[in-house]
């Protein structure tokens, strides 16, 4: 089964939110907080990035690369990068993988590779 990151599409105006909000940012719909859950696209362009040389203590890696990606359709997402020489504007493709491990918890999130 292919894993996805899901966004929240307003049932009234169609505006897509990621992350989730209780009230639609676009139309202010507040009757039922009704959203459809839709998978975010995985392909996009790298908007900006950084390499962190002192990642949080629960990461057992010397460096951690992070970026913001503009996905097809214009939505953006923050994610981890697994790319040798990242460049602003490059084409990337995401996979849903474990991005943080805590004692009893594994968090899934988007990791981007060069497309």
């Amino acid at each position: 089964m292919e894993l996805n990151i899901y966004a929240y599409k307003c049932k009234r105006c169609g505006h897509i939110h990621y992350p989730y909000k209780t009230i639609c940012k676009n139309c202010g719909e507040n009757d039922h907080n009704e959203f459809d859950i839709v998978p975010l696209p995985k392909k996009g362009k790298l908007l900006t990035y950084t390499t962190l040389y002192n990642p949080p203590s629960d990461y057992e890696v010397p460096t951690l690369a992070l970026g913001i990606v503009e996905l097809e359709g214009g939505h953006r997402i923050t994610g981890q990068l697994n790319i040798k020489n990242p460049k602003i504007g490059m084409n990337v493709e995401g996979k849903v993988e474990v991005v943080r491990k805590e004692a009893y918890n594994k968090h899934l999130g988007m990791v981007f590779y060069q497309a």
Partner: protein
Amino acid sequence: MREVYVAGIGITSFTRLEYPLVEIAAYPGLMALRDSGLKKIDQLYVANMGSGRVNGQTGLASAVVDHLSLTPAGAVTIENGPASGASAIKEGFMAVASGMHDVVMVIGAERMREVNQLEATDFVATLTHPLAEYIYGVTLPSLAGMFARLYMEKYGVTSRHLAMVAVKNHHNAMDNFYAHLHEEITLEGILDSPEASTNNPYVADPLRFYDMCPVSDGGACLILVSADVMKKLNKPMIRLAGIGQATDTHAVHERKDPTYLFAVREAAKKSFAMAGVKPEDVDVAELHDAFTILEIAESEEVGFFKKGEGHIALEKGETKIGGKIPINPSGGLKAKGHPVGATGVGQAHEIVLQLRGEAKKRQVKNAKIGFTCNFGGFGNNVVCLTFIKEK
């Protein structure tokens, strides 16, 4: 609304302090009482971000009011991330302006060095979006790194410009007894020399070690009073004339243009409008340079320079003491230090000193209008203050 004046100020060194958080909060309170000549207060606000998590202490304001033997005055703790300080000043202002109280003490205090640097960074990172940012390992330095990369690409800001902010603010801090870092640095040492990559390694590229503020302990205090109380004190009439606060999206990636600090722009605009002044009227400013890039970006967003031209003004020396608009004469967060919950009060403390003409060697001449920008989250909650010296 009634007018609100600053009757007294106090501060600790911003550094590693080896005494309890309650005392870090109480000493500047004591200094401010002495400075004002007041003995009693109606209300205390204590700004703090991390006592529950970092120091294992909650209900901080109740502890501080008792420590200062100011009971039965009201006491409230205010947590609003790194903007806690100016947020508490806003609450203090409203309490006096509304007529509810005549004398309000606002303290900001933080003791972060009780834990190591990684734990401190992780504690601050908890203010990022839990699901869209934090789970990826996003910290404040990483948001600043991504912001800086895009800013440099878009506006032609270079590592040299960032280093110039650090050099300037370290230089200013040399004349500030209370500053965390008393270390004169040069472009040669942190950028050009063969040792520079060792002296100044990458932390969140393109940002390096000297682009980051230190992790500090510290406290600061302002006593805010009504005009009637102020007139009896025979102190310089420094009026808190404008306050603006604005918010932005929690996750940085949701902003239309992630190089814009919309909340800074809005908060500054509101603060200036309330005070009835323009950005070009400001004589001295303390901006929230937790990262060097932020001083440049904020100097544009608050209206001192056009968008994309802050680094050019910096290059020309316009932001030095003696320049057109001196920024961070205290040394800023970069060199004065950043005890998160105390920072906004610390910035106001510096502006009051400057407007009183008590800033000694780092005094900006004839400063009459001062401004602070206290930046919470990564720009998602910002409070700007405008102070005016009256005759």
